[in-house]
Protein backbone atom coordinates (compact mmCIF):
# COMPACT_ATOMS: atom_id res chain seq x y z
CA UNK A 1 0.00 0.00 0.00
CA UNK A 2 2.75 2.39 1.02
CA UNK A 3 4.74 1.60 -2.16
CA UNK A 4 1.71 2.63 -4.21
CA UNK A 5 1.13 5.80 -2.23
CA UNK A 6 4.68 7.23 -2.36
CA UNK A 7 4.82 7.71 -6.17
CA UNK A 8 1.44 9.42 -6.04
CA UNK A 9 2.63 11.76 -3.32
CA UNK A 10 5.82 12.47 -5.28
CA UNK A 11 3.87 13.78 -8.26
CA UNK A 12 4.39 17.51 -8.77
CA UNK A 13 1.78 19.61 -7.11
CA UNK A 14 0.82 17.08 -4.46
CA UNK A 15 3.60 16.75 -1.94
CA UNK A 16 4.43 20.44 -1.71
CA UNK A 17 0.96 21.59 -0.74
CA UNK A 18 0.72 18.75 1.77
CA UNK A 19 4.04 19.67 3.30
CA UNK A 20 2.98 23.29 3.41
CA UNK A 21 -0.26 22.35 5.10
CA UNK A 22 1.62 20.27 7.63
CA UNK A 23 4.05 23.08 8.31
CA UNK A 24 1.26 25.60 8.61
CA UNK A 25 -0.68 23.38 10.97
CA UNK A 26 2.44 22.88 13.03
CA UNK A 27 3.17 26.57 13.15
CA UNK A 28 -0.40 27.33 14.01
CA UNK A 29 -0.57 24.79 16.78
CA UNK A 30 2.56 25.93 18.57
CA UNK A 31 2.94 29.65 19.12
CA UNK A 32 6.65 29.35 19.77
CA UNK A 33 7.77 26.89 17.14
CA UNK A 34 7.71 29.25 14.19
CA UNK A 35 10.36 31.40 15.77
CA UNK A 36 12.84 28.54 15.98
CA UNK A 37 12.24 26.89 12.62
CA UNK A 38 13.61 29.90 10.76
CA UNK A 39 13.53 30.38 7.01
CA UNK A 40 12.01 33.11 4.95
CA UNK A 41 9.47 30.81 3.27
CA UNK A 42 8.24 29.64 6.65
CA UNK A 43 7.70 33.21 7.76
CA UNK A 44 5.93 34.32 4.62
CA UNK A 45 3.60 31.34 5.01
CA UNK A 46 3.01 32.40 8.56
CA UNK A 47 2.27 35.94 7.39
CA UNK A 48 -0.16 34.67 4.75
CA UNK A 49 -1.87 32.39 7.28
CA UNK A 50 -2.26 35.24 9.74
CA UNK A 51 -3.62 37.60 7.11
CA UNK A 52 -6.10 35.00 5.87
CA UNK A 53 -7.21 34.19 9.41
CA UNK A 54 -7.78 37.84 10.32
CA UNK A 55 -9.51 38.71 7.06
CA UNK A 56 -11.76 35.63 7.26
CA UNK A 57 -12.85 36.77 10.70
CA UNK A 58 -13.45 40.39 9.64
CA UNK A 59 -15.27 39.74 6.36
CA UNK A 60 -17.10 36.71 7.80
CA UNK A 61 -16.84 35.10 4.35
CA UNK A 62 -16.10 31.82 6.13
CA UNK A 63 -14.95 30.56 9.52
CA UNK A 64 -11.22 31.12 9.90
CA UNK A 65 -9.00 28.10 10.65
CA UNK A 66 -9.02 29.31 14.25
CA UNK A 67 -10.04 32.38 16.23
CA UNK A 68 -7.45 35.10 15.59
CA UNK A 69 -5.78 36.47 18.70
CA UNK A 70 -4.89 40.12 18.25
CA UNK A 71 -3.25 43.02 20.02
CA UNK A 72 -6.02 45.52 19.27
CA UNK A 73 -5.75 49.24 19.85
CA UNK A 74 -3.24 51.85 20.94
CA UNK A 75 -0.78 50.63 23.50
CA UNK A 76 2.71 51.04 24.87
CA UNK A 77 2.92 47.47 26.11
CA UNK A 78 6.14 46.92 24.08
CA UNK A 79 7.85 49.68 26.09
CA UNK A 80 6.79 48.27 29.46
CA UNK A 81 7.60 44.70 28.42
CA UNK A 82 11.05 45.58 27.12
CA UNK A 83 11.82 47.61 30.23
CA UNK A 84 12.12 51.04 28.65
CA UNK A 85 10.09 54.11 29.52
CA UNK A 86 7.17 55.26 27.40
CA UNK A 87 9.16 58.47 26.85
CA UNK A 88 12.04 56.46 25.39
CA UNK A 89 9.60 54.59 23.19
CA UNK A 90 8.19 57.84 21.83
CA UNK A 91 11.46 59.74 21.47
CA UNK A 92 14.24 57.19 20.82
CA UNK A 93 13.75 55.30 17.52
CA UNK A 94 16.49 52.70 18.19
CA UNK A 95 15.12 51.75 21.63
CA UNK A 96 11.58 51.76 20.27
CA UNK A 97 12.49 49.45 17.37
CA UNK A 98 14.19 46.92 19.67
CA UNK A 99 11.26 46.97 22.10
CA UNK A 100 8.69 46.62 19.33
CA UNK A 101 10.33 43.61 17.68
CA UNK A 102 11.15 41.94 20.99
CA UNK A 103 7.44 42.09 21.81
CA UNK A 104 6.44 40.83 18.35
CA UNK A 105 8.85 37.91 18.68
CA UNK A 106 7.84 36.95 22.21
CA UNK A 107 4.08 37.36 21.72
CA UNK A 108 3.08 35.74 18.43
CA UNK A 109 -0.20 37.52 17.82
CA UNK A 110 -2.07 37.18 14.55
CA UNK A 111 -2.02 40.93 14.24
CA UNK A 112 -0.98 43.60 16.67
CA UNK A 113 -1.30 47.34 16.94
CA UNK A 114 1.55 49.13 15.12
CA UNK A 115 2.85 50.80 18.25
CA UNK A 116 5.87 52.08 16.32
CA UNK A 117 3.53 54.66 14.76
CA UNK A 118 3.21 56.21 18.21
CA UNK A 119 6.89 57.18 18.27
CA UNK A 120 6.07 60.75 17.26
CA UNK A 121 7.61 62.48 20.28
CA UNK A 122 10.27 64.31 18.29
CA UNK A 123 7.93 65.42 15.53
CA UNK A 124 5.32 66.61 18.03
CA UNK A 125 7.95 68.49 20.03
CA UNK A 126 9.50 70.10 16.93
CA UNK A 127 6.08 71.31 15.85
CA UNK A 128 5.06 72.35 19.36
CA UNK A 129 1.90 70.23 19.28
CA UNK A 130 0.23 71.05 22.57
CA UNK A 131 -2.90 68.98 22.06
CA UNK A 132 -1.04 66.06 23.58
CA UNK A 133 0.78 65.86 26.90
CA UNK A 134 3.83 63.77 26.18
CA UNK A 135 5.64 61.44 28.61
CA UNK A 136 8.98 62.75 29.77
CA UNK A 137 8.12 66.21 28.44
CA UNK A 138 4.83 67.14 30.10
CA UNK A 139 3.97 64.14 32.27
CA UNK A 140 5.68 61.18 33.92
CA UNK A 141 8.06 59.30 31.58
CA UNK A 142 6.18 56.05 32.19
CA UNK A 143 2.70 57.35 31.40
CA UNK A 144 0.99 57.09 28.05
CA UNK A 145 0.52 60.36 26.14
CA UNK A 146 -2.75 62.04 27.08
CA UNK A 147 -4.94 64.67 25.45
CA UNK A 148 -4.60 68.14 26.88
CA UNK A 149 -8.21 69.18 27.00
CA UNK A 150 -8.74 72.94 27.03
CA UNK A 151 -11.24 75.18 25.29
CA UNK A 152 -9.27 76.13 22.18
CA UNK A 153 -12.59 77.33 20.81
CA UNK A 154 -13.88 79.86 23.31
CA UNK A 155 -17.51 80.33 24.33
CA UNK A 156 -17.94 83.50 22.29
CA UNK A 157 -16.25 82.14 19.16
CA UNK A 158 -18.99 79.77 18.00
CA UNK A 159 -20.41 82.24 15.45
CA UNK A 160 -16.89 82.92 14.13
CA UNK A 161 -16.03 79.27 13.54
CA UNK A 162 -19.39 78.52 11.93
CA UNK A 163 -19.19 81.58 9.66
CA UNK A 164 -15.42 81.53 9.09
CA UNK A 165 -15.08 77.78 8.54
CA UNK A 166 -11.68 76.52 7.47
CA UNK A 167 -10.15 80.00 7.50
CA UNK A 168 -11.03 80.45 11.16
CA UNK A 169 -9.73 76.99 12.04
CA UNK A 170 -6.44 77.61 10.20
CA UNK A 171 -5.98 81.16 11.44
CA UNK A 172 -7.24 80.93 15.03
CA UNK A 173 -7.65 77.35 16.25
CA UNK A 174 -4.58 75.71 14.72
CA UNK A 175 -2.13 78.20 16.30
CA UNK A 176 -3.70 77.26 19.66
CA UNK A 177 -3.06 73.57 18.95
CA UNK A 178 0.38 73.79 17.38
CA UNK A 179 2.86 76.40 18.55
CA UNK A 180 4.59 76.42 15.17
CA UNK A 181 1.47 77.86 13.54
CA UNK A 182 1.63 80.79 15.92
CA UNK A 183 5.27 81.54 15.06
CA UNK A 184 6.26 84.05 12.41
CA UNK A 185 9.34 84.90 10.33
CA UNK A 186 12.64 83.18 11.10
CA UNK A 187 11.23 81.24 14.04
CA UNK A 188 8.54 79.78 11.78
CA UNK A 189 11.07 78.85 9.10
CA UNK A 190 13.45 77.25 11.60
CA UNK A 191 10.58 75.36 13.20
CA UNK A 192 9.31 74.07 9.87
CA UNK A 193 12.80 72.87 8.98
CA UNK A 194 13.01 70.94 12.27
CA UNK A 195 9.61 69.40 11.68
CA UNK A 196 10.52 68.27 8.15
CA UNK A 197 13.75 66.77 9.45
CA UNK A 198 12.05 64.91 12.33
CA UNK A 199 9.18 63.82 10.11
CA UNK A 200 11.57 62.33 7.57
CA UNK A 201 13.37 60.49 10.40
CA UNK A 202 10.08 59.18 11.72
CA UNK A 203 8.93 58.03 8.28
CA UNK A 204 12.27 56.42 7.56
CA UNK A 205 12.09 54.46 10.85
CA UNK A 206 8.44 53.49 10.31
CA UNK A 207 8.90 52.32 6.72
CA UNK A 208 12.03 50.40 7.76
CA UNK A 209 10.09 48.62 10.48
CA UNK A 210 7.19 47.86 8.13
CA UNK A 211 9.58 46.31 5.62
CA UNK A 212 11.26 44.28 8.36
CA UNK A 213 7.95 43.06 9.76
CA UNK A 214 7.20 41.06 6.64
CA UNK A 215 10.49 39.21 6.89
CA UNK A 216 9.77 38.44 10.53
CA UNK A 217 6.25 37.16 9.82
CA UNK A 218 4.63 40.00 11.78
CA UNK A 219 1.24 40.83 10.31
CA UNK A 220 -0.27 44.23 10.78
CA UNK A 221 -3.26 45.65 8.96
CA UNK A 222 -3.86 48.87 10.90
CA UNK A 223 -2.28 52.13 9.78
CA UNK A 224 -4.09 55.46 9.91
CA UNK A 225 -6.34 57.00 12.56
CA UNK A 226 -9.75 58.60 11.98
CA UNK A 227 -11.50 60.53 14.75
CA UNK A 228 -15.18 61.36 14.07
CA UNK A 229 -16.04 65.10 14.05
CA UNK A 230 -17.73 65.05 17.46
CA UNK A 231 -14.57 63.59 19.02
CA UNK A 232 -12.37 66.14 17.25
CA UNK A 233 -14.61 68.82 18.69
CA UNK A 234 -14.55 67.44 22.22
CA UNK A 235 -10.87 66.46 22.32
CA UNK A 236 -9.35 69.40 20.49
CA UNK A 237 -11.78 72.34 20.28
CA UNK A 238 -13.87 72.09 23.45
CA UNK A 239 -13.57 70.15 26.68
CA UNK A 240 -16.32 67.60 27.29
CA UNK A 241 -17.93 69.74 30.05
CA UNK A 242 -17.93 72.81 27.76
CA UNK A 243 -19.30 70.87 24.83
CA UNK A 244 -21.92 69.45 27.16
CA UNK A 245 -22.95 72.97 28.13
CA UNK A 246 -23.13 73.79 24.41
CA UNK A 247 -25.61 70.96 23.99
CA UNK A 248 -27.89 72.46 26.66
CA UNK A 249 -28.34 75.70 24.75
CA UNK A 250 -30.49 76.07 21.64
CA UNK A 251 -28.14 78.21 19.59
CA UNK A 252 -24.90 76.35 20.32
CA UNK A 253 -26.68 73.01 19.84
CA UNK A 254 -27.30 74.07 16.24
CA UNK A 255 -23.68 75.21 15.89
CA UNK A 256 -22.42 71.80 17.04
CA UNK A 257 -24.49 70.00 14.40
CA UNK A 258 -23.46 72.46 11.69
CA UNK A 259 -19.77 72.29 12.53
CA UNK A 260 -19.81 68.46 12.56
CA UNK A 261 -21.47 68.49 9.13
CA UNK A 262 -19.03 71.01 7.69
CA UNK A 263 -15.91 69.40 9.13
CA UNK A 264 -16.74 65.92 7.96
CA UNK A 265 -15.86 66.16 4.23
CA UNK A 266 -12.53 67.77 5.15
CA UNK A 267 -11.72 65.19 7.78
CA UNK A 268 -12.63 62.34 5.42
CA UNK A 269 -10.32 63.72 2.74
CA UNK A 270 -7.42 64.15 5.16
CA UNK A 271 -7.85 60.74 6.80
CA UNK A 272 -8.23 58.98 3.44
CA UNK A 273 -5.03 60.57 2.15
CA UNK A 274 -3.12 59.41 5.25
CA UNK A 275 -4.68 55.93 5.12
CA UNK A 276 -3.71 55.50 1.49
CA UNK A 277 -0.17 56.70 2.23
CA UNK A 278 0.27 53.93 4.84
CA UNK A 279 -0.63 51.28 2.26
CA UNK A 280 -2.45 49.35 5.00
CA UNK A 281 -6.14 48.47 4.76
CA UNK A 282 -7.15 48.96 8.40
CA UNK A 283 -8.04 52.36 9.82
CA UNK A 284 -8.29 52.85 13.55
CA UNK A 285 -11.56 54.66 14.42
CA UNK A 286 -11.49 55.55 18.12
CA UNK A 287 -14.81 56.80 19.49
CA UNK A 288 -13.84 58.29 22.80
CA UNK A 289 -16.98 60.29 23.49
CA UNK A 290 -19.85 58.28 22.03
CA UNK A 291 -20.42 56.43 25.31
CA UNK A 292 -21.31 59.66 27.08
CA UNK A 293 -24.27 60.36 24.81
CA UNK A 294 -27.84 59.14 25.05
CA UNK A 295 -29.20 57.36 21.96
CA UNK A 296 -31.12 60.53 21.07
CA UNK A 297 -27.99 62.69 21.35
CA UNK A 298 -25.88 60.15 19.46
CA UNK A 299 -28.40 60.11 16.64
CA UNK A 300 -28.40 63.89 16.50
CA UNK A 301 -24.74 64.82 16.97
CA UNK A 302 -22.53 61.82 16.36
CA UNK A 303 -23.95 59.12 14.16
CA UNK A 304 -24.75 61.04 10.93
CA UNK A 305 -21.13 62.06 10.37
CA UNK A 306 -19.60 58.82 11.68
CA UNK A 307 -21.88 56.87 9.36
CA UNK A 308 -20.75 58.95 6.35
CA UNK A 309 -17.16 58.43 7.39
CA UNK A 310 -17.48 54.64 7.69
CA UNK A 311 -19.17 54.37 4.28
CA UNK A 312 -16.53 56.59 2.63
CA UNK A 313 -13.70 54.45 4.02
CA UNK A 314 -15.23 51.13 3.03
CA UNK A 315 -16.00 52.52 -0.44
CA UNK A 316 -12.29 53.42 -0.67
CA UNK A 317 -11.37 49.78 0.02
CA UNK A 318 -10.42 50.33 3.67
CA UNK A 319 -11.45 48.54 6.87
CA UNK A 320 -12.69 50.71 9.77
CA UNK A 321 -11.67 49.27 13.15
CA UNK A 322 -14.37 50.82 15.34
CA UNK A 323 -13.04 51.11 18.86
CA UNK A 324 -15.93 52.38 20.97
CA UNK A 325 -14.56 53.19 24.38
CA UNK A 326 -16.37 52.47 27.67
CA UNK A 327 -19.91 51.07 27.69
CA UNK A 328 -21.74 51.77 24.41
CA UNK A 329 -24.22 48.88 24.56
CA UNK A 330 -27.04 51.43 24.24
CA UNK A 331 -25.68 52.69 20.90
CA UNK A 332 -24.56 49.55 19.08
CA UNK A 333 -27.91 49.08 17.32
CA UNK A 334 -27.11 52.11 15.15
CA UNK A 335 -24.45 50.03 13.36
CA UNK A 336 -27.20 47.78 12.04
CA UNK A 337 -28.45 50.67 9.91
CA UNK A 338 -25.41 50.14 7.68
CA UNK A 339 -25.78 47.62 4.85
CA UNK A 340 -23.88 44.36 5.10
CA UNK A 341 -21.57 45.28 2.23
CA UNK A 342 -20.26 47.96 4.64
CA UNK A 343 -20.43 46.15 7.96
CA UNK A 344 -18.67 43.05 6.65
CA UNK A 345 -15.65 45.31 6.07
CA UNK A 346 -15.59 46.68 9.63
CA UNK A 347 -14.63 45.46 13.08
CA UNK A 348 -16.41 46.42 16.29
CA UNK A 349 -13.91 46.66 19.15
CA UNK A 350 -15.91 46.20 22.32
CA UNK A 351 -14.38 47.83 25.40
CA UNK A 352 -16.64 47.70 28.46
CA UNK A 353 -19.94 47.15 26.64
CA UNK A 354 -21.87 43.98 27.35
CA UNK A 355 -20.24 41.96 24.57
CA UNK A 356 -22.83 39.20 24.80
CA UNK A 357 -25.62 41.71 24.27
CA UNK A 358 -23.58 43.39 21.50
CA UNK A 359 -23.21 39.99 19.83
CA UNK A 360 -26.97 39.53 19.91
CA UNK A 361 -27.64 43.02 18.59
CA UNK A 362 -25.14 42.83 15.74
CA UNK A 363 -26.33 39.31 14.94
CA UNK A 364 -23.64 38.47 12.39
CA UNK A 365 -23.72 41.95 10.88
CA UNK A 366 -20.18 42.88 11.89
CA UNK A 367 -17.09 41.16 13.28
CA UNK A 368 -16.44 41.70 16.99
CA UNK A 369 -13.28 41.83 19.07
CA UNK A 370 -12.12 42.99 22.51
CA UNK A 371 -13.66 42.88 25.97
CA UNK A 372 -11.16 40.97 28.16
CA UNK A 373 -11.17 43.47 31.06
CA UNK A 374 -8.04 45.57 31.32
CA UNK A 375 -8.02 44.86 35.06
CA UNK A 376 -7.85 41.11 34.34
CA UNK A 377 -4.89 41.67 32.02
CA UNK A 378 -3.07 43.97 34.47
CA UNK A 379 -3.74 42.60 37.94
CA UNK A 380 -5.40 39.23 37.28
CA UNK A 381 -3.79 35.82 36.85
CA UNK A 382 -3.46 33.59 33.75
CA UNK A 383 -6.30 31.50 35.19
CA UNK A 384 -8.51 34.63 35.34
CA UNK A 385 -7.70 35.30 31.68
CA UNK A 386 -8.58 31.73 30.73
CA UNK A 387 -11.85 31.87 32.65
CA UNK A 388 -12.88 35.04 30.85
CA UNK A 389 -11.84 33.56 27.49
CA UNK A 390 -14.04 30.52 28.25
CA UNK A 391 -17.07 32.80 28.49
CA UNK A 392 -16.14 34.72 25.35
CA UNK A 393 -15.53 31.62 23.25
CA UNK A 394 -18.71 29.91 24.34
CA UNK A 395 -20.82 32.80 23.06
CA UNK A 396 -18.76 34.37 20.31
CA UNK A 397 -16.61 31.72 18.65
CA UNK A 398 -19.33 29.72 16.84
CA UNK A 399 -19.69 30.74 13.20
CA UNK A 400 -16.63 33.01 13.06
CA UNK A 401 -16.59 36.81 12.94
CA UNK A 402 -14.77 37.03 16.25
CA UNK A 403 -11.19 37.89 17.26
CA UNK A 404 -9.82 37.42 20.78
CA UNK A 405 -8.38 40.61 22.27
CA UNK A 406 -8.27 42.62 25.51
CA UNK A 407 -10.87 45.38 25.89
CA UNK A 408 -8.90 48.22 24.33
CA UNK A 409 -5.88 46.38 23.07
CA UNK A 410 -3.14 45.03 25.30
CA UNK A 411 -2.91 47.49 28.18
CA UNK A 412 0.46 49.09 28.86
CA UNK A 413 0.65 47.48 32.29
CA UNK A 414 -0.50 44.00 31.21
CA UNK A 415 1.30 41.16 32.99
CA UNK A 416 3.29 39.30 30.32
CA UNK A 417 2.08 35.93 31.63
CA UNK A 418 -1.50 37.09 31.05
CA UNK A 419 -0.79 38.02 27.43
CA UNK A 420 0.81 34.61 26.95
CA UNK A 421 -2.26 33.01 28.52
CA UNK A 422 -4.56 34.79 26.07
CA UNK A 423 -2.48 33.69 23.07
CA UNK A 424 -2.18 30.14 24.35
CA UNK A 425 -5.93 30.00 24.91
CA UNK A 426 -6.62 30.92 21.28
CA UNK A 427 -4.13 28.29 20.07
CA UNK A 428 -5.56 25.57 22.28
CA UNK A 429 -9.28 26.30 22.05
CA UNK A 430 -9.71 28.45 18.95
CA UNK A 431 -9.78 25.81 16.18
CA UNK A 432 -12.85 25.60 14.02
Amino acid sequence: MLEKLVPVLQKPGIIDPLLRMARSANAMLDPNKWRHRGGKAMRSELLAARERRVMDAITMRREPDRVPVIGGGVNFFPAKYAGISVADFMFDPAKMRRAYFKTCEDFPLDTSFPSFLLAVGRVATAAGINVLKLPGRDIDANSSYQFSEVDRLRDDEWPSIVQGGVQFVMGTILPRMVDLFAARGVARLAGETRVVLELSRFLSTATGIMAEMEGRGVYNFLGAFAFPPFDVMSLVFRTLPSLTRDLMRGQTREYVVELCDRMNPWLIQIYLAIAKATGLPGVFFPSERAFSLSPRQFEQYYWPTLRQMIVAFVDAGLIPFLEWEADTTHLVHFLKELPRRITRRCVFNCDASDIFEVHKILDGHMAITGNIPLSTMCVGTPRDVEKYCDKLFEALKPGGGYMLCPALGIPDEARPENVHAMIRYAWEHGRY
Partner: protein
Amino acid sequence: MPGRSLAAEEQALVDAILEFDEDAVLEQVQRLRSGGKDPLQIVEVARVAMDEVGQRFQTKQLFLTELIMGGELLKSTMRALGFATGTPARAEGAKGKVLLGTVAGDIHDIGKNIVLSLLVANGYDVVDIGVDVPAGRFVEEVRRYRPDVVGMCGLLTVAFDSMKATVDALVGAGLRDEVKVIVGGGAVDQKVCDYVGADAWGPTAADAVAICRKWIG
Protein backbone atom coordinates in the same frame (compact mmCIF):
# COMPACT_ATOMS: atom_id res chain seq x y z
CA MET B 1 -37.62 68.90 51.11
CA PRO B 2 -37.50 65.08 51.22
CA GLY B 3 -40.95 63.67 51.83
CA ARG B 4 -42.76 66.84 50.75
CA SER B 5 -44.62 66.78 47.43
CA LEU B 6 -43.67 69.57 45.04
CA ALA B 7 -45.93 72.43 44.06
CA ALA B 8 -46.75 72.70 40.34
CA GLU B 9 -44.24 75.48 39.69
CA GLU B 10 -41.53 73.59 41.59
CA GLN B 11 -42.29 70.48 39.56
CA ALA B 12 -41.95 72.62 36.42
CA LEU B 13 -38.36 73.43 37.47
CA VAL B 14 -37.61 69.76 38.07
CA ASP B 15 -39.06 68.92 34.64
CA ALA B 16 -37.00 71.64 32.95
CA ILE B 17 -33.81 70.26 34.53
CA LEU B 18 -34.74 66.75 33.41
CA GLU B 19 -35.23 68.12 29.88
CA PHE B 20 -31.69 69.59 30.12
CA ASP B 21 -32.74 72.91 28.63
CA GLU B 22 -30.95 75.78 30.31
CA ASP B 23 -33.25 78.50 28.96
CA ALA B 24 -36.30 76.72 30.38
CA VAL B 25 -34.54 76.16 33.72
CA LEU B 26 -33.62 79.82 34.09
CA GLU B 27 -37.15 80.83 33.15
CA GLN B 28 -38.61 78.59 35.86
CA VAL B 29 -36.11 79.86 38.43
CA GLN B 30 -37.13 83.41 37.58
CA ARG B 31 -40.81 82.50 37.84
CA LEU B 32 -40.32 80.93 41.30
CA ARG B 33 -38.28 83.92 42.44
CA SER B 34 -40.92 86.38 41.20
CA GLY B 35 -43.52 84.38 43.08
CA GLY B 36 -41.62 85.08 46.30
CA LYS B 37 -40.05 81.65 46.74
CA ASP B 38 -37.05 81.58 49.04
CA PRO B 39 -33.79 81.13 46.99
CA LEU B 40 -32.60 78.33 49.29
CA GLN B 41 -35.84 76.45 48.70
CA ILE B 42 -35.39 76.86 44.94
CA VAL B 43 -31.89 75.36 45.20
CA GLU B 44 -33.39 72.46 47.15
CA VAL B 45 -35.87 71.87 44.31
CA ALA B 46 -32.94 71.79 41.89
CA ARG B 47 -31.21 69.28 44.16
CA VAL B 48 -34.31 67.08 44.06
CA ALA B 49 -34.05 67.15 40.25
CA MET B 50 -30.35 66.36 40.48
CA ASP B 51 -31.10 63.36 42.71
CA GLU B 52 -33.52 62.13 40.07
CA VAL B 53 -30.84 62.61 37.39
CA GLY B 54 -28.42 60.54 39.50
CA GLN B 55 -30.96 57.76 39.98
CA ARG B 56 -31.89 57.64 36.30
CA PHE B 57 -28.17 57.57 35.44
CA GLN B 58 -27.65 54.58 37.71
CA THR B 59 -30.49 52.71 36.04
CA LYS B 60 -29.10 53.62 32.58
CA GLN B 61 -32.10 55.73 31.64
CA LEU B 62 -29.73 58.69 31.37
CA PHE B 63 -26.13 58.90 30.22
CA LEU B 64 -22.94 60.71 31.18
CA THR B 65 -23.55 63.89 29.17
CA GLU B 66 -26.93 64.26 30.87
CA LEU B 67 -25.35 63.71 34.28
CA ILE B 68 -22.86 66.50 33.54
CA MET B 69 -25.72 68.67 32.26
CA GLY B 70 -27.61 68.09 35.52
CA GLY B 71 -24.60 69.33 37.51
CA GLU B 72 -24.23 72.33 35.22
CA LEU B 73 -27.92 73.20 35.54
CA LEU B 74 -27.65 73.04 39.32
CA LYS B 75 -24.78 75.52 39.06
CA SER B 76 -26.78 77.73 36.65
CA THR B 77 -29.65 77.73 39.13
CA MET B 78 -27.35 78.73 41.97
CA ARG B 79 -25.70 81.45 39.88
CA ALA B 80 -29.08 82.85 38.86
CA LEU B 81 -29.99 83.08 42.54
CA GLY B 82 -26.74 84.81 43.47
CA PHE B 83 -25.03 81.87 45.25
CA ALA B 84 -21.37 81.04 44.76
CA THR B 85 -20.85 77.80 42.82
CA GLY B 86 -17.27 76.94 43.71
CA THR B 87 -16.33 73.97 45.84
CA PRO B 88 -17.36 74.92 49.35
CA ALA B 89 -14.12 74.01 51.14
CA ARG B 90 -14.79 73.13 54.78
CA ALA B 91 -18.49 73.88 54.44
CA GLU B 92 -20.39 74.50 57.64
CA GLY B 93 -22.72 71.68 58.56
CA ALA B 94 -21.37 69.36 55.88
CA LYS B 95 -22.20 65.67 56.20
CA GLY B 96 -18.57 64.61 56.04
CA LYS B 97 -15.25 65.35 54.37
CA VAL B 98 -14.01 63.74 51.17
CA LEU B 99 -10.55 64.22 49.64
CA LEU B 100 -10.55 63.66 45.88
CA GLY B 101 -7.72 63.42 43.36
CA THR B 102 -6.60 61.77 40.14
CA VAL B 103 -3.55 59.65 40.92
CA ALA B 104 0.03 60.00 39.61
CA GLY B 105 0.60 59.50 35.89
CA ASP B 106 -2.97 60.35 34.94
CA ILE B 107 -4.34 63.78 34.11
CA HIS B 108 -7.95 62.82 33.37
CA ASP B 109 -10.39 64.77 35.48
CA ILE B 110 -13.83 64.48 33.94
CA GLY B 111 -14.86 61.56 36.16
CA LYS B 112 -13.34 63.14 39.24
CA ASN B 113 -15.17 66.41 38.60
CA ILE B 114 -18.50 64.64 38.19
CA VAL B 115 -18.01 62.80 41.48
CA LEU B 116 -17.07 66.12 43.05
CA SER B 117 -20.19 67.92 41.84
CA LEU B 118 -22.46 65.06 42.94
CA LEU B 119 -20.85 64.93 46.39
CA VAL B 120 -21.18 68.70 46.78
CA ALA B 121 -24.79 68.52 45.61
CA ASN B 122 -25.37 65.90 48.30
CA GLY B 123 -24.00 68.09 51.04
CA TYR B 124 -20.47 66.78 51.50
CA ASP B 125 -17.39 68.92 52.09
CA VAL B 126 -15.07 68.02 49.23
CA VAL B 127 -11.40 68.92 48.82
CA ASP B 128 -10.18 68.49 45.24
CA ILE B 129 -6.40 68.10 45.04
CA GLY B 130 -6.27 67.93 41.26
CA VAL B 131 -4.72 65.51 38.78
CA ASP B 132 -1.44 63.59 38.50
CA VAL B 133 -1.21 63.60 42.30
CA PRO B 134 1.73 61.62 43.75
CA ALA B 135 1.23 59.31 46.72
CA GLY B 136 3.19 61.65 49.03
CA ARG B 137 0.88 64.54 48.26
CA PHE B 138 -2.19 62.43 49.12
CA VAL B 139 -0.56 61.68 52.48
CA GLU B 140 0.15 65.37 53.12
CA GLU B 141 -3.39 66.38 52.24
CA VAL B 142 -4.88 63.62 54.42
CA ARG B 143 -2.78 64.95 57.31
CA ARG B 144 -3.91 68.51 56.59
CA TYR B 145 -7.65 67.97 55.99
CA ARG B 146 -8.30 64.80 58.01
CA PRO B 147 -11.00 63.60 55.60
CA ASP B 148 -13.41 60.76 56.32
CA VAL B 149 -13.01 59.39 52.82
CA VAL B 150 -10.17 59.46 50.28
CA GLY B 151 -11.36 59.12 46.67
CA MET B 152 -8.79 58.20 44.05
CA CYS B 153 -9.60 58.42 40.35
CA GLY B 154 -7.78 57.22 37.24
CA LEU B 155 -8.72 56.41 33.68
CA LEU B 156 -5.52 54.72 32.53
CA THR B 157 -4.14 51.37 33.61
CA VAL B 158 -1.03 53.18 34.87
CA ALA B 159 -3.35 54.42 37.64
CA PHE B 160 -3.62 50.94 39.20
CA ASP B 161 -0.06 50.99 40.51
CA SER B 162 -0.35 54.66 41.49
CA MET B 163 -3.46 53.88 43.54
CA LYS B 164 -1.67 50.97 45.20
CA ALA B 165 1.34 53.17 45.93
CA THR B 166 -0.97 55.76 47.49
CA VAL B 167 -2.70 53.23 49.75
CA ASP B 168 0.72 51.82 50.71
CA ALA B 169 1.89 55.35 51.52
CA LEU B 170 -1.16 55.91 53.75
CA VAL B 171 -0.36 52.64 55.53
CA GLY B 172 3.29 53.72 55.88
CA ALA B 173 2.23 57.06 57.35
CA GLY B 174 -0.07 55.35 59.85
CA LEU B 175 -3.15 57.02 58.33
CA ARG B 176 -4.83 54.12 56.60
CA ASP B 177 -7.08 53.19 59.53
CA GLU B 178 -8.30 56.76 59.84
CA VAL B 179 -9.86 56.96 56.38
CA LYS B 180 -12.03 54.95 54.05
CA VAL B 181 -10.58 54.64 50.58
CA ILE B 182 -12.69 54.48 47.42
CA VAL B 183 -11.35 54.12 43.87
CA GLY B 184 -13.01 54.64 40.51
CA GLY B 185 -12.70 55.49 36.87
CA GLY B 186 -12.00 53.79 33.54
CA ALA B 187 -11.06 50.17 34.00
CA VAL B 188 -11.36 50.09 37.81
CA ASP B 189 -13.33 47.13 39.13
CA GLN B 190 -13.36 44.78 42.14
CA LYS B 191 -10.07 43.18 41.03
CA VAL B 192 -8.37 46.55 40.99
CA CYS B 193 -10.00 47.50 44.28
CA ASP B 194 -8.53 44.35 45.88
CA TYR B 195 -5.16 44.90 44.21
CA VAL B 196 -4.73 48.46 45.44
CA GLY B 197 -6.11 47.74 48.91
CA ALA B 198 -9.07 50.12 48.75
CA ASP B 199 -12.25 49.67 50.78
CA ALA B 200 -14.62 50.04 47.83
CA TRP B 201 -14.88 50.99 44.18
CA GLY B 202 -17.61 52.82 42.32
CA PRO B 203 -18.54 51.98 38.73
CA THR B 204 -20.25 55.37 38.38
CA ALA B 205 -20.16 58.73 40.13
CA ALA B 206 -23.61 58.05 41.54
CA ASP B 207 -22.33 54.80 43.06
CA ALA B 208 -19.46 56.71 44.66
CA VAL B 209 -21.96 59.01 46.35
CA ALA B 210 -24.07 56.06 47.51
CA ILE B 211 -20.99 54.45 49.07
CA CYS B 212 -20.00 57.66 50.85
CA ARG B 213 -23.57 57.96 52.11
CA LYS B 214 -23.33 54.45 53.54
CA TRP B 215 -20.02 55.24 55.23
CA ILE B 216 -20.53 58.73 56.59
CA GLY B 217 -24.25 59.41 56.37
